C-alpha cells in the first residue's frame, strides 16, 4: 500500500480493497518501525489518526466521502494544530500546544484527510539541510549520511521513505522545492497569496507560502485543490477563483514554449545534474514543446537580496517570542530585560539568532537605505526579469538545485555556503511566482530535481506539464533501497 500514490489509494478506498483504518495502521506501523532511521516526525498522532480513519470508513460506506476521505497525510510542524504540539523545530515552541488550527489544517480535516503526525523541519524554517532543527536532523532516505534538504526536510523524507503518501510544507526561499529535489519527490510552491498563511508560523511574511509535497504532480494537484483559496484572515490572501487543478493535467503540451535561463546553467551547476536536467528538457521537446534560451540577468543578486529581506522580516516576526505569554522562558529571570535576553538566547538556535541579528542590522538607523531599501529595489529588478521572460515563454525550466544531497556537516560553519544551495529557488519567492520541483534522474544514486517556474496563478499549467512528463518517465516512481518491500 505504501508505494501507491494518493490517487491510487483513493481508488483503493473507493473499491474497498482496504479500509482507511487498515491504511492508517499500515503507515503508523511503518513510522513506528522505520522512522528511527530518518527522524522525520516530531510528533505522531496515532489516536486521533485512527479516530479520523474510523470516521472516514463510516463516511465511505455511506457514500458521504469528501475529496481526500480516509487518505493519510502529514503536516509540517509549522502549521498550528489544535491540541497538538506545534514546535516549528524550535526549543522556543517545544511546549507550544496551539488552541486553534491553521486554515489549511481545517481544510484537510474538512476534506476527510487522516493526519498521521507533524514533520521535522529546520528551526523556524531557516535552513537548507534540516541540521538546524532542535529535534535533530532528518536523514535522507536515499542516503542516510546525507541531508534531506530543508526546511521541509521531514515532509520530503516521510514521502520518500513511504511513511506517509503526502505532506504539507512551506517555501520561503526553496523550502519545498529543494528538499523535494534532494529526496526524489514532487513539491509545489504556489503563487504568493494562493494558500492561506493563517496559522502558519511566520518566518518572512512577504515570501512565505504553503504548498503540497507528494509522489506525483497528480497528487500535488489533488492536495492543492484542498489548500488553495481566499482567506479573509490572511491579509495577503489572493481573492481569485481556484480552478480544479486535476482537470487540466492531461492537456497536450505541444506548442508550449519553455524558457531555459542561461543563468541557471552556470559554472556552479554540477555537470551530472545538468545532464539529467537537459534530458528532462529534451523529453518536453519530444512532446512538442519548444525550448527557448532566455536570460534572467539579475539572478546573481537573488541570494543577496533574499538575505536582507528574509532576515529583516524574520527579525520583526520573531520579536513576538519574548518569554511572556507562551513559549520558552529562561529559569529565574532577575528582571524583564534579563527574561527577554536569556529566553531568546536559550530558546533560539544559532541560525535563527544569526538571521535575527542580520535583520536587526539591516533595519537599523543608518543602514535601512543601504540594505533593506536596496534589496527591495533589486527585488523589483528580479520580478521585472521574469515579466520580460514571460512575454516570450509559457513556462521557465531548469535545475532545482546546483548539486544532489550533500553529507551532514559538509557546509561547515560558513552560513553562506549553505545559502548558495538555494541559488535557483529563491528568485521565485522574491517575485512571488509559482514553482515546483519534480524528480528527473539521479547523480551518484541521489535524486535530481527539475524545476518549473510558472506565470502568476498558473499552477494548473505547471502541474499539466509535470504530469505529462511523469506519464512518459518513471523517475517519480523510484524508491530508496530497502523501501520496496
Amino acid at each position: 500500500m505504501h508505494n501507491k500514490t494518493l490517487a491510487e489509494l483513493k481508488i483503493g478506498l473507493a473499491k474497498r480493497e482496504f479500509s482507511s483504518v487498515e491504511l492508517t495502521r499500515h503507515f503508523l506501523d511503518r513510522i513506528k518501525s522505520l522512522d528511527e532511521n530518518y527522524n522525520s516526525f516530531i510528533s505522531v498522532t496515532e489516536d486521533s489518526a485512527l479516530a479520523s480513519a474510523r470516521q472516514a470508513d463510516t463516511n465511505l460506506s455511506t457514500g458521504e466521502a469528501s475529496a481526500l476521505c480516509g487518505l493519510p497525510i502529514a503536516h509540517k510542524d509549522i502549521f498550528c494544530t489544535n491540541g497538538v504540539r506545534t514546535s516549528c523545530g524550535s526549543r522556543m515552541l517545544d511546549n507550544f500546544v496551539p488552541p486553534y488550527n491553521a486554515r489549511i489544517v481545517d481544510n484537510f480535516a474538512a476534506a476527510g484527510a487522516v493526519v498521521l503526525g507533524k514533520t521535522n523541519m529546520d528551526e523556524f524554517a531557516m535552513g537548507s539541510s534540516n541540521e538546524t532543527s532542535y529535534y535533530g536532523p532528518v536523514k535522507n532516505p536515499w542516503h542516510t549520511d546525507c541531508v534531506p534538504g530543508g526546511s521541509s526536510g521531514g515532509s520530503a523524507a516521510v514521502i520518500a521513505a513511504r511513511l506517509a503518501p503526502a505532506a504539507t510544507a512551506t517555501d520561503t526561499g526553496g523550502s519545498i522545492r529543494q528538499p523535494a529535489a534532494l529526496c526524489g519527490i514532487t513539491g509545489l510552491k504556489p503563487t504568493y497569496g494562493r494558500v492561506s498563511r493563517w496559522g502558519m508560523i511566520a518566518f518572512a511574511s512577504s515570501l512565505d507560502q504553503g504548498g503540497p509535497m507528494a509522489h506525483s504532480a497528480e497528487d500535488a494537484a489533488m492536495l492543492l485543490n484542498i489548500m488553495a483559496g481566499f482567506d479573509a484572515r490572511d491579509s495577503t490572501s489572493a481573492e481569485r477563483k481556484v480552478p480544479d487543478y486535476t482537470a487540466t493535467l492531461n492537456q497536450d503540451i505541444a506548442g508550449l514554449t519553455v524558457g531555459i535561463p542561461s543563468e541557471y546553467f552556470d559554472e556552479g551547476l554540477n555537470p551530472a545534474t545538468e545532464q539529467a536536467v537537459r534530458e528532462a528538457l529534451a523529453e518536453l521537446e519530444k512532446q512538442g514543446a519548444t525550448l527557448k534560451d532566455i536570460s534572467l540577468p539579475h539572478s546573481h543578486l537573488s541570494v543577496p537580496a533574499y538575505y536582507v529581506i528574509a532576515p529583516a522580516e524574520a527579525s520583526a516576526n520573531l520579536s513576538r517570542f519574548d518569554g511572556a505569554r507562551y513559549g520558552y522562558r529562561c529559569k529565574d529571570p532577575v528582571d524583564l530585560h534579563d527574561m527577554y535576553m536569556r529566553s531568546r538566547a536559550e530558546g533560539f538556535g544559532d541560525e535563527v539568532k544569526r538571521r535575527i541579528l542580520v535583520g536587526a542590522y539591516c533595519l537599523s538607523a543608518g543602514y535601512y537605505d543601504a540594505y533593506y531599501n536596496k534589496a527591495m529595489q533589486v527585488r523589483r529588478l528580479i520580478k521585472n526579469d521574469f515579466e520580460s521572460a514571460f512575454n516570450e515563454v509559457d513556462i521557465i525550466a531548469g535545475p532545482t538545485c546546483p548539486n544532489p544531497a550533500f553529507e551532514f556537516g559538509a557546509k561547515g560553519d560558513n552560513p553562506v555556503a549553505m545559502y548558495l544551495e538555494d541559488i535557483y529557488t529563491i528568485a521565485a519567492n522574491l517575485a512571488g511566482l509559482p514553482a515546483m520541483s519534480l524528480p528527473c534522474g539521479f547523480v551518484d544514486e541521489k535524486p535530481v530535481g527539475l524545476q518549473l517556474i510558472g506565470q502568476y496563478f498558473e499552477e494548473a499549467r505547471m502541474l499539466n506539464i509535470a504530469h505529462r512528463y511523469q506519464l512518459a518517465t518513471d523517475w517519480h516512481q523510484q524508491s530508496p533501497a530497502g523501501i520496496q518491500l
Partner: protein
Amino acid sequence: MTIDRADIEKLGELARIAITEANIEATTRSINEVLALVDQLQSANTDQVSPLANPLDATQRLRHDRISESNHREDFQPLAPATENGLYLVPKVIE
C-alpha cells in the same frame, strides 16, 4: 561593510538576544560573512527603481472596523509560563 565586537553587542541588545563571551567572536565572524554576501547588492544600478515590498504589488486589504473576534483568554492562558488570576506574570518591572 563589516561589523566589530561593539556592533554585535549593540545588535544583541537591540534584538534582545544575549550573546555570551564564548560566542561573540564566532557570531561576529559569521555575520560578517553574511554581510559580505549582501554587499553584492551595491553593484546593482537601482536608479529610478521603486522598491517592491509585496511581490504582487498588492496593497493592504481593509476590513470594517467592528469586533470580529471573541475573547479567548481561557484558551491562551494555559500556554503561558506563569499566570495568576487571569493575568500574565513577568518579573517585577517597577520597584
